[in-house]
């Protein structure tokens, strides 16, 4: 362990104090010492502090006693709950952690990862200096050379194959500022192929929920679950993925004697504390959801008034639900009808009720449909927009919410503006860059294989390649890939590489890349799979604990993390690395025009201010660095349940903790943020809201605006469209705008001033006036039960590609083959082959994957943490005792797990448990470093390999992508197990 916590120089003052205590007999247990004659000689010895030696820095002491210890506050870099980390720093060395009692989210607590996070910064398994792969050997290289060589190679690739041939894979571990800079970097480079872990996390949630009621994010918060009377946790295991959320869930369950229902293929640690547990077959979420709604509609338990006022076309859902009586639901999913009836009654009657979901619902080829079905249950029972209700979407990584908001998504620019021309012009204005220059950065795409050619403008408005299929972008024949050239180079920031399905194909992709750059605190799987011999660079990046920046937790609160210690070894933070790359590629001045850069390190505060200047569409405009820092300083003032500070407080009066977006208007307006989305019981000025009217005002003669429902204190007492200058003029509110605001709007609108909306009015005047009138800037619409623009307007059950029930595939096939995200999605063909080849005969077991509490994401960082690695030393597969005895497998022995594609196989330990049902097996996805039975440790750079290695489950996971977001399907595939 790099840092040993032993006393040093600082201890000198304390020793006198201790000696004095001894002499005065104050310390009673010393009586034992005197009797035993143990001399107090040890007092005299005091080692000296070894400063400077970065590798072996020694300093120790405990805060209460030695004055030199400085306390720094940052946010845990692991999951999205957003626990505050209180670090004790002595002489620039992080020596200890104390509970962060004041944070309203974690109230002093941590999970295993948070309590061990100090090791991340002090571990000697970090990537220490830039490395370059030459002939299969890792050679040390300086930062300057690395940046120069990478820059030159990128420019060469660009000349030969165009901007779209370089893939930019960002990270959910970025701070908001780094995520925003990375998306801006992608735009300045000239490609939309900029993605991150949200793709394999909640991409389907964002698409599905946004297309239902406006924003795709957690509507309430962890703390708000304390108000819930009923909670369904479906497709989620918070006990392992979001442990601190369980503090609020269990408190809610205890204080309200709430019904806690877990619906999951496994009897997880969360299910152990549930009041009801339903075991279902993986991939049958929609039948179960329609089963619940069937009982609700059958018995008329739905909230009719809520549906009439705020939901459009619920009758289409009724028609689809009618096809799912209890026996069909049980035939398909295995969930007993009587139990679903009881659960449906609880959810509809014992309100407020909330629906919590995570990867179990999203990682399917029907992910988007799943999520919309979940929203229907909330809408039908009126469980949205009130305390204790809502769709509590538990996001995964520390800043997957922020990185998604800030545009690390191939379908949009920062803050969900999309890729339409208006979006590009908006950001061109914010970045103070010519729109035409941005357009010039994009490739022209010639006509290939019968597809129409694309001008630079059209290509600029076409979504890029998703992170789930980057290797298809390299390997597929060029004519199948709808861009100028297949991918030639990839730049990866903070991404594990073993969390995307079909790793054998990914290795093929890695082999064919001309250039691979991995910027990460650890070498990651990309460096370990022995796929490449040359042109691979590892850049050491520091963790978010070693830099300033804000991150957005799953409950949409932004929290500011202050730098705990300087970046370890030769690592640099993301801002500096992006600045150096931008400088090398020649667009640094324009990219960092309004951002102060001191010796190559851009200021995080300035980046956040730029985000505020452009973040109108999602309400990222009110969270100034000053306000966030004030929140971190006054954490104890925020209420545990409502997350709100008392009104009269001078610094943070009335604010919700972390100013959860949307936080309307400029920071000076001091909008408190919106703790609960779509809450019509509060004034919009107090964080109230309505459903977003983003799908137009009417469709086929039926209004899409809310009826007789409006937020408290709203001047308009019925549905209203989103606000543009045209609407303002009709209402006469344009007179309320100040001359300065009018000037800015005039400049933006030019001749089409009526088109300037609340989202692209940089003055913030429209939003300010909306708040004065107590109306939601984005309008007051109805949630859509029928999302006509999605492949399945009303969610329809479709069997997984590798379904264990060929008989059901005929009745519930997957969607037909189609081109999505620049390449073909041949899910239908693959599913048909699976049925024809009767794959289920040779691969009878359903394989599902998921999280462990000790590891996170790809696991490189946490498996390099000695304190965590000791708790889970072996990759394992959970097998039901019946399946194990049928194959003669003993607990703890090695077994081979064969995957149906590419003859892939993994060697893992068997864990025999009744946690999984008969016919289902489970494997965690955090391991890598072994490949098909072979230990790949020697391919890691010397001394930077994680402590624990193991097989990756995604070596054997299979083809299958959601039509709307290309989400992968690791939650439901097939496999076979045999003894090793």
């Amino acid at each position, binding site marked *: 362990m790099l840092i040993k916590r032993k006393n040093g120089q600082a201890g000198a003052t304390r020793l006198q104090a201790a000696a004095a205590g001894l002499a005065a007999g104050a310390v009673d247990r010393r009586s034992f010492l005197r009797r035993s004659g143990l001399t107090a000689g040890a007092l005299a010895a005091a080692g000296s502090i070894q400063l400077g030696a970065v590798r072996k820095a020694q300093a120790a002491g405990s805060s209460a006693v030695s004055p030199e210890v400085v306390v720094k506050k940052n946010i845990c870099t692991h999951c999205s709950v957003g626990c505050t980390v209180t670090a004790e720093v002595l002489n620039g060395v992080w020596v200890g952690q104390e509970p962060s009692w004041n944070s309203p989210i974690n109230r002093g607590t941590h999970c295993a990862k948070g309590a061990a996070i100090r090791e991340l910064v002090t571990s000697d398994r970090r990537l220490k200096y830039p490395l370059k792969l030459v002939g299969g050997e890792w050679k040390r290289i300086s930062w300057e050379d690395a940046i120069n060589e990478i820059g030159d190679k990128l420019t060469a690739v660009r000349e030969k194959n165009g901007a779209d041939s370089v893939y930019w894979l960002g990270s959910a571990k970025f701070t908001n500022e780094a995520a925003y800079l990375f998306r801006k970097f992608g735009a300045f480079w000239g490609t939309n192929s900029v993605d991150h872990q949200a793709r394999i996390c909640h991409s389907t949630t964002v698409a599905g929920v946004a297309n239902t009621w406006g924003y795709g994010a957690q509507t309430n918060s962890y703390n708000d679950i304390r108000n819930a009377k009923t909670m369904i946790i479906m497709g989620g295991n918070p006990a392992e993925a979001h442990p601190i959320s369980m503090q609020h869930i269990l408190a809610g369950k205890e204080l309200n004697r709430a019904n806690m229902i877990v619906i999951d293929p496994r009897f997880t640690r969360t299910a152990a504390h549930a009041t009801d547990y339903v075991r279902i077959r993986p991939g049958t979420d929609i039948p179960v959801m329609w089963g619940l709604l069937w009982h609700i509609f059958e018995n008329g338990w739905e909230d009719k008034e809520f549906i009439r006022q705020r939901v459009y076309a619920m009758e289409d859902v009724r028609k689809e639900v009618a096809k799912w009586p209890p026996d069909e639901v049980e035939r398909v999913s295995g969930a007993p009808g009587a139990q679903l009836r009881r659960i449906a009654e609880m959810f509809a009657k014992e309100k407020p009720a909330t629906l919590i979901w995570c990867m179990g619902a999203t990682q399917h080829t029907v992910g988007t449909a799943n999520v919309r079905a979940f929203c229907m249950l909330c809408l039908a029972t009126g469980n949205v927009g009130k305390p204790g209700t809502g769709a509590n979407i538990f996001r995964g990584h520390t800043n997957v919410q922020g990185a998604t908001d800030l545009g690390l998504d191939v379908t949009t620019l920062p803050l969900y503006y999309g890729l339409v021309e208006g979006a590009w012009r908006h950001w061109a204005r914010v970045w103070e860059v010519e729109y035409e220059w941005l357009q010039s950065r994009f490739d022209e795409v010639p006509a290939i294989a019968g597809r129409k050619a694309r001008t630079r403008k059209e290509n600029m408005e076409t979504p890029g390649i998703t992170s789930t299929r980057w290797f298809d972008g390299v390997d597929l024949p060029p004519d199948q890939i709808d861009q100028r050239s297949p991918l030639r180079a990839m730049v990866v920031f903070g991404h594990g590489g073993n969390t995307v399905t079909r790793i054998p194909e990914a290795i093929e992709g890695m082999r064919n890349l001309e250039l691979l750059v991995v910027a990460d605190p650890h070498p990651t799987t990309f460096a370990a799979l022995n796929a490449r011999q040359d042109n691979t660079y590892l850049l050491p990046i520091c963790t978010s604990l070693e830099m300033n920046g804000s991150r957005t937790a799953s409950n949409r609160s932004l929290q500011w993390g202050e730098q705990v210690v300087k970046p370890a070894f030769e690592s640099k933070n993301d801002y500096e690395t992006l600045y150096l790359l931008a400088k090398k590629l020649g667009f640094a001045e324009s990219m960092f025009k309004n951002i102060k850069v001191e010796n190559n390190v851009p200021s995080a505060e300035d980046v956040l201010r730029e985000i505020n200047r452009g973040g109108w569409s999602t309400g990222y405009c009110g969270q100034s660095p000053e306000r966030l820092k004030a929140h971190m300083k006054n954490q104890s003032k925020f209420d545990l349940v409502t997350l709100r500070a008392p009104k009269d407080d001078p610094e943070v009066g009335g604010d919700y903790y972390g100013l959860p977006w949307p936080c309307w208007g400029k920071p000076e307006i001091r909008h408190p943020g919106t703790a609960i989305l779509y809450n019509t019981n509060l004034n919009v000025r107090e964080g109230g809201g309505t459903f977003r009217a983003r799908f137009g005002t009417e469709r086929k003669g039926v209004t899409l605006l809310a009826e007789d429902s409006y937020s408290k204190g709203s001047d308009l007492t019925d549905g209203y469209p989103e606000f543009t200058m045209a609407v303002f003029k009709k209402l006469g509110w344009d007179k309320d705008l100040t001359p300065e605001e009018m000037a800015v709007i005039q400049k933006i609108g030019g001749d089409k001033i009526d088109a300037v909306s609340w989202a692209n009015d940089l003055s913030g005047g429209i939003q300010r006036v909306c708040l004065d009138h107590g109306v939601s800037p984005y309008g007051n619409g109805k949630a859509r039960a029928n999302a006509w623009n999605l492949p399945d307007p009303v969610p329809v059950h479709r069997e997984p590609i590798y379904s264990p029930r060929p008989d059901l595939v005929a009745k519930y096939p997957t969607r037909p083959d189609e081109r999505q995200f620049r390449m073909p999605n041949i899910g239908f063909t693959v599913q048909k082959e699976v049925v024809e080849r009767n794959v289920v005969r040779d691969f009878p077991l359903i394989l599902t994957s998921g999280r462990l509490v000790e590891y996170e994401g790809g696991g490189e960082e946490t498996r390099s943490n000695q*304190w965590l690695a000791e708790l889970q030393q072996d990759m394992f597969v959970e097998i039901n005792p019946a399946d194990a005895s049928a194959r003669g497998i003993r607990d703890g022995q090695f077994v081979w797990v064969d995957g149906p594609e590419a003859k892939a196989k993994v060697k893992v330990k068997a864990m025999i448990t009744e946690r999984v049902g008969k016919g289902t097996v489970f494997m965690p996805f955090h391991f890598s470093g072994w490949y098909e039975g072979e230990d790949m440790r020697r391919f890691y750079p010397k001394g930077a390999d994680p402590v624990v290695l193991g097989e990756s489950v995604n070596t054997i996971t299979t083809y299958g992508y959601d039509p709307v977001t290309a989400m992968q399907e690791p939650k439901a595939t097939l496999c076979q197990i045999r003894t090793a």
Partner: protein
Amino acid sequence: MARMKFLCDADRCIECNACVTACKNEHEVPWGINRRRVVTLNDGRPGERSVSMACMHCTDAPCAAVCPVNCFYTTADAVVLHSKDICIGCGYCFYACPFGAPQYPRIGNFGSRGKMDKCTYCTGGPEPDFSVAEYEKYGSNRLAEGKLPLCAEMCSTKSLLAGDGEMIAAIYKQRVIKRGYGSGAWGWKTAYRETVTI
């Protein structure tokens, strides 16, 4: 004077191992020495419960009694500690400990098994408070800083309670009355010869 005890509310423990890594972090506990660990009973079946266990600092501690060199002592707030200078690593305390708390640096009893190490309730050992020797042999000393053991302070769901016996018993009793169920104070009858009666 407070009577320090541990109480793990098994109806809240989710086996997240925060207590384990908090202990490792606070005292730099090396690999292989597990002062605290979480045991899951009835794993994978309805009624599954996890309990975090280190040393319960028993009343009339069996380990102190069987120690051939009497290297144990109990502090005023009833924390059972021992001196590593006197311990001869014979292993008797492990046979006597009802909770498997003692840990030994070496496997096998021949020659030296290494000095026994166990949970010190974050209050160090017979060395001057906050001294180098104390940290090297017993770890940090939170109680002397007026704090409580870090495992309990950082427990993710506030399941593991540490502090004065009556206080944490009262907290637990209050919880069970409020929520209507409780699987009891694990190990109290064996450790303290009394338990929390609701």
